[in-house]
């Protein structure tokens, strides 16, 4: 097992690791002492559910588990209860670290508003030696499919991100994304590894408390998904006076060229850097970035592969594309390519199935100077407010409730096609409550029948524009 950055955090001693939303500063020493105390309650390497918000307890538990080589599955506290129960039943964790009253079990330890509970499951998990942590692939539809990340994955991606963003001890990142989300987690990892500070808050950009905390604690950076930038545009970010901010990052879906250009220009004017990035949890977090100097002239591009990573494009015949402006599937190679997926307890014993090569499922092109552009997707999923939502899983959820339907749409706008007019409102509410996403993301449309080919497969292309 390789040692990850979490083992060397002790070197930062009295420096401030975390600042809570009430302004309490927590040193690396305190963080590690609480983290190790939580982890010591667990006798040996096992599987733990870690229900994470952007607060001290969540981070302490998580870091403790990672340091003790206990394998956490990171879970968003807003998960639908039924889906949580299903996930627990599938993986049968030995312990759960969660807010009070969240989980059942015998109390082994409590800190602040969090409790470590020993579950009644007796499953003995066979955990692959290199397995460090597990992330849900689409937290919102509650699919029990997990991404298996290794110690090497985390170590490699963390250092690569620190290198290209040039994160140093003086940085202070404020949270805008959940920790159970790979982008949010990577911000925590990179800032701790660099001895920097993370300001923890669950407040939304649409609330006053977020901006007051940012100003008071002099945050230097934050990250956002495309929807975050839509919100910032609405908030007239251009007129806000935020002198402490030195750079902004964007990932979690494709930002429109217009918004990308707009923010590149605003940031350039204010002497801030704007960095568009691209990644997936299957690649730990990050695969590419657009160096900020190119933000304006290459707006709309996902940039170049991160340090120590490599992109290639492959055509339909599996041949490598060498000419610019030719579309092919984007393939990434690097030490941050994760081990593979898990869909059952048994899968946790599996080794490395990808050997450093990831077929991203995204269709892309590169230009004459080698900058990459995403032009489409091979798989059926949408990004809704930064969350990957698998359309087949949504269809499955609806069908299990007896709705005859087909699901399509574009990012941030899902369309649900139903053949019974009376179900128009029901399907919207059902999916909104299951996914925890605002109903505004869903439109339901009545159609007479679902278009299918002779073999009964849904013709999704026919639904476009309906």
């Amino acid at each position, binding site marked *: 097992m390789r040692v990850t950055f979490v083992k060397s955090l002790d070197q930062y001693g009295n420096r401030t690791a975390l600042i809570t939303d009430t302004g309490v500063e927590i040193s690396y020493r305190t963080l590690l002492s609480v983290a190790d105390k939580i982890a010591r309650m667990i006798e040996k390497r096992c599987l733990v559910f870690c229900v994470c918000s952007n607060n001290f307890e969540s981070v302490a538990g998580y870091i403790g588990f990672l340091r003790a080589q206990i394998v956490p599955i990171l879970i968003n506290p807003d998960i639908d209860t039924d889906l949580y129960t299903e996930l627990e039943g599938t993986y049968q964790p030995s312990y759960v670290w969660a807010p009070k009253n969240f989980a059942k079990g015998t109390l082994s330890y409590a800190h602040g508003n969090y409790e470590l509970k020993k579950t009644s499951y007796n499953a003995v998990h066979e955990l692959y030696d290199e397995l460090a942590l597990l992330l849900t692939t689409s937290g919102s539809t509650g699919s029990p499919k997990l991404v298996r990340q290794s110690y090497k994955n985390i170590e490699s991606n963390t250092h690569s991100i620190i290198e290209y963003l040039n994160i140093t001890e003086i940085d202070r990142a404020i949270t805008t994304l959940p920790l159970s989300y790979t982008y949010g987690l990577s911000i925590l990892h990179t800032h701790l590894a660099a001895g920097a500070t993370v300001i923890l808050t669950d407040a939304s950009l649409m609330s006053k408390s977020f*901006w007051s905390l940012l100003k008071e604690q002099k945050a230097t950076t934050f990250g956002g998904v495309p929807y975050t930038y839509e919100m910032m545009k609405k*908030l007239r970010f251009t007129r806000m006076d935020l002198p402490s901010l030195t750079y902004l990052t964007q990932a979690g879906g494709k930002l429109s060229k217009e918004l990308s250009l707009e923010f590149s220009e605003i940031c350039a004017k204010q002497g801030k850097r704007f960095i568009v990035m691209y990644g997936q949890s299957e690649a730990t977090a990050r695969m590419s970035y657009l160096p900020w100097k190119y933000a304006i002239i290459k707006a709309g591009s996902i940039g170049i592969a991160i340090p120590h990573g490599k992109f290639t494009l492959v055509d339909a015949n599996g041949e490598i594309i060498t000419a610019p402006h030719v579309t092919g599937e984007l393939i990434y190679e690097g030490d941050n390519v994760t081990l593979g997926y898990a869909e059952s307890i048994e899968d946790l014993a599996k080794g490395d199935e990808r050997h450093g090569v990831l077929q991203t499922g995204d269709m892309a092109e590169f230009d004459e100077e080698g900058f990459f552009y995403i032009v489409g997707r091979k798989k059926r999923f949408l990004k809704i407010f930064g969350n990957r939502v698998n359309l087949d899983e949504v269809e499955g959820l609806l069908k299990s409730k007896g709705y005859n339907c087909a699901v399509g749409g574009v990012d941030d706008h899902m369309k649900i096609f139903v053949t019974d007019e009376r179900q128009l409102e029901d399907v919207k509410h059902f999916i909104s409550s299951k996914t925890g996403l*605002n*109903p505004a993301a869903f439109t339901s449309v009545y159609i007479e029948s679902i278009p299918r080919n002779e073999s009964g497969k849904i013709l999704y292309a026919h639904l476009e524009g309906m």
Partner: protein
Amino acid sequence: MILSNLEKYNNAFLEAFGIDESKLNAGLTYQSIKEWDSVGHMSLIAELEDTFDIMMETDDIIDLSSYEKGKEIITKYDIEL
């Protein structure tokens, strides 16, 4: 029929959140219903700006944390409710 400003104000909430008129009361605050999250807030601001043909200030957008507070804020834009 000409709508009063209060009716227009109410309609903005109904449109943005897709809720019933009975929910429009002092208890309606940011995150008190699932429709009023950050996404819903964006729709609400857009509705209010379109309805009254105004451009709201950043501070007012993030201050508008309840149905009642919104009334106060809207009057700043020379709209009498």
